[in-house]
């Protein structure tokens, strides 16, 4: 196709006939009629005809006219023309059929034999003219020599009318919206008002005081307001608050949107300042628009501009709303985070408050218990003292005194040992029941038996044995009272020292003694567990001993629970090179799941399977906080069979005190 761009396209007419001479005659006449502007070619072979057509169209030339003789024997002439008409590239060509009998075929110009030469020439000229008018009006001058002038003038008139219609529409459109582009707003408005004045013979101006409501949101609108002077506020009231949507952006035409859509007002319109305005009913507006050719343009322009301003204002508002929403979301997130921190702090406060209350209670009870314990202890000593010589007054005084003293002072033996002694003695003396009584009063072999009860009648022996048992029991009971009272006393002491919890900073504290108190108080949990204390030389430190007790309680309690009834709890203390103390609490439990180890110091993390432990719900988190307040560290190393918590404490806490207890 590239050669078409530089080559001027030619116009062709092709003729197909039965005999060469007839065809040549036809070619000559058409060539003459079209003054050589159209290249006319003749064919007697339909294949050559088809080939030539395709080639011409393919190279960019135009086939203007096809003439086929229906007497061509090898070809169905009308069928061939119909076929060409149905093919897109040949469709524009005018099809002429030379016929003997006309059949008024659609899309085909029939020329009936015998035709006059003049008539044929004129027909050819007309058809070529029509082709150029329809398909190549820009090349019209090429056929100026022979063009059908009558036909051309008709076509020209039609085209001219069409053009004028289009231009007037275009002009109207341009007048409407584009002509005034360079005119300032107030000039457009002034023109609009002038036109309204002219159309409605200067309608009445109304003075409206500031604050007057022109339109009320939701109410029907029966007129619009052309504002000449002053400002209108367009507002909406949302949840009792007035939101100003438009102030300077309201424009001069108020109420038109609602009127045009026949809907209630969707904003409140209030006089922001004193106003001068022309109220117009719909009917008046309609009259004005019809009475003035240019009012519509000014009116629409003014309206468009005010709408554009309102729209921009809406976009600005929208952006402001988005900005506000963003800020609100940010503030909400900050608040949520603050709330979460407060809740954590509150939980910790409640926890430490609970501990403090419990501590006071325990300290109180400990104090109250001191008196009865002291009384029991002293009374036991007094009884022991008063009884010390009494057994000697017995007939068998020395023996009784010995039974008493032995029960009081003899180191305890195991139940199995006692049973063995009894079995052995039973073998010797042949009386199991007697052997049992003898062993329990300290007579464990035949020699002792002989010495104590030999050579006696059964009656005397029984009496003496009963007395021995009595003195033995007396000593035993005293011993047991003393040891039980001692244990209570130790417990109370530990309770009190443990419960001095949070009573502020103390100096000269032995860390190990707090650990010992804790171990003693957790004694009931320690059955079945071996406790190994590896205490090194440690400096005394300044600390909050009550709070540290909570740390030891949590760590030891966790260790015990991890071991579930059997294992070894090792507690080590050592001094730090920089001063301060290092404490290790190690258990032989199954270890902490590696996927949990990062969370164990977090709030509320427990692996205790939903079991609630009194006062220890916050366990390790609390321990970590307390150690941190002391300026120390807490770490854990865990593997199956060995879990160790390491706590370091400096020789004194940092300046900042931990607040309260």
């Amino acid at each position, binding site marked *: 196709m590239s050669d078409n761009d530089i080559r001027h396209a030619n116009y062709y007419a092709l003729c197909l006939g039965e005999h060469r001479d007839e065809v040549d005659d036809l070619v000559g006449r058409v060539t003459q009629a079209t003054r050589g502007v159209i290249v006319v070619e003749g064919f007697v072979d339909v294949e050559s005809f088809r080939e030539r057509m395709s080639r011409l169209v393919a190279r960019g030339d135009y086939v203007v006219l096809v003439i086929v003789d229906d007497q061509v024997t090898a070809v169905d002439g009308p069928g061939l023309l119909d076929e060409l008409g149905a093919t897109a590239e040949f469709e524009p060509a005018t099809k002429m059929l030379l016929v003997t009998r006309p059949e008024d075929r659609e899309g085909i110009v029939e020329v009936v034999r015998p035709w006059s030469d003049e008539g044929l020439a004129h027909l050819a000229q007309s058809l070529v003219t029509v082709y150029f008018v329809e398909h190549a009006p820009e090349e019209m001058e090429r056929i100026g020599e022979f063009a059908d002038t009558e036909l051309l003038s008709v076509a020209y008139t039609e085209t001219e009318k069409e053009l004028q219609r289009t231009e007037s529409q275009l002009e109207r459109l341009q007048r409407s919206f584009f002509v005034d582009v360079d005119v300032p707003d107030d000039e457009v408005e002034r023109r609009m008002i002038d036109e309204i004045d002219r159309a409605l013979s200067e309608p009445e101006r109304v003075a409206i005081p500031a604050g007057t409501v022109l339109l009320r949101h939701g109410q029907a609108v029966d007129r619009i307001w052309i504002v000449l002077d002053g400002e209108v506020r367009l507002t909406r009231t949302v949840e009792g608050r007035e939101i100003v949507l438009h102030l300077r952006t309201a424009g001069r035409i108020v109420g038109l949107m609602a009127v045009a859509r026949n809907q209630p007002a969707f904003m409140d319109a209030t006089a922001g300042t004193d106003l001068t305005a022309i109220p117009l009913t719909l009917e008046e507006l309609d009259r004005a628009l019809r009475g003035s050719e240019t009012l519509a343009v000014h009116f629409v322009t003014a309206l468009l501009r005010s709408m554009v301003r309102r729209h921009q204002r809406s976009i600005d508002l929208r952006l402001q709303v988005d900005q506000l929403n963003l800020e609100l979301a940010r503030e909400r997130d900050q608040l949520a985070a603050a709330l979460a921190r407060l809740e954590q702090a509150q939980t910790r406060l409640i926890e430490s408050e609970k501990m403090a209350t419990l501590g006071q209670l325990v300290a109180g009870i400990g104090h109250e218990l001191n008196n009865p314990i002291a009384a029991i202890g002293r009374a036991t000593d007094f009884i022991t003292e008063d009884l010390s010589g009494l057994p000697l007054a017995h007939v068998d005084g020395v023996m009784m005194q010995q039974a008493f003293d032995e029960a009081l002072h003899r180191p305890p033996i*195991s139940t199995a040992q006692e049973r063995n002694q009894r079995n052995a003695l039973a073998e010797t003396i042949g009386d199991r029941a007697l052997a049992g009584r003898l062993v329990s009063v300290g007579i464990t072999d035949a020699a002792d038996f002989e010495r104590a009860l030999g050579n006696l009648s059964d009656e005397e022996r029984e009496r003496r044995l009963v007395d021995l048992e009595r003195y033995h029991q007396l000593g035993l009971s005293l011993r047991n009272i003393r040891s039980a009272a001692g244990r209570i006393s130790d417990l109370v002491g530990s309770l009190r020292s443990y419960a001095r919890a949070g009573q502020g900073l103390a100096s000269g504290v032995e860390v190990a003694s707090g650990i010992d108190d804790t171990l003693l108080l957790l004694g009931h949990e320690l*059955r079945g567990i071996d406790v190994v204390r590896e205490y090194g030389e440690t400096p005394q430190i300044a600390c909050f001993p009550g709070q540290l007790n909570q740390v030891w309680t949590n760590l030891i309690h966790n260790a015990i629970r991890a071991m579930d009834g059997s294992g070894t709890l090792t507690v080590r203390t050592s001094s730090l090179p920089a001063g301060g103390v290092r404490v290790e609490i190690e258990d032989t439990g199954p270890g902490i799941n590696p996927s949990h180890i990062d969370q164990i110091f977090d709030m509320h993390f427990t692996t205790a399977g939903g079991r609630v432990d009194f006062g220890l719900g916050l366990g390790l988190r609390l321990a970590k906080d307390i150690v941190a307040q002391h300026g120390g560290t807490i770490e854990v190393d865990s593997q199956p069979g060995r879990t160790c918590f390491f706590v370091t404490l400096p020789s004194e806490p940092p300046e900042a005190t931990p607040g309260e207890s």
Partner: protein
Amino acid sequence: MSEIAIVVVEDEREVRDAVVRDLTPFAGYFRIEAAEDVDDARTLLSELGGDDVLTGLILCDHLLPGMLGIDFLIELEAEPQTRSTRKVLLTGQAGLEDTIRAVNEAKLDYYIAKPWSPDNLHQVVKSQLTEFVLNSDEDVLPYVPILDGPRLLDAASQRGWEGRAT
């Protein structure tokens, strides 16, 4: 007639001494044995079995070194030798859950809270041993003075009557 034993399992010496002494009234009729932990209790029970002594009653502390009293009683329930033994838990520390487990699984017969009163202890021991004697093949008459006499006599006449009937 086989000898019948009362076994006390208690790790704290002072408490054990007191329980054993509180059982003195039964000493003329029953063999009173004490063990300070579960291991020793097992040894003791096998010794008793070897001597053909029946274990009529076990008074067991709950918090024992290395094992809960409940678990030990459950273990004994599974042993032929101690299945019919009356089982009494003596503790101040068992929780409700442990107690329920004890009743359901160990056929715990009674639960004595520390500190106990000797009267209560005597009452419990008396009624439990009466049950044991009645459920055994032993002659009940020797125990009439120390246990629940009227019940034992009723049972004795019942047995005598049955004896004649067969």
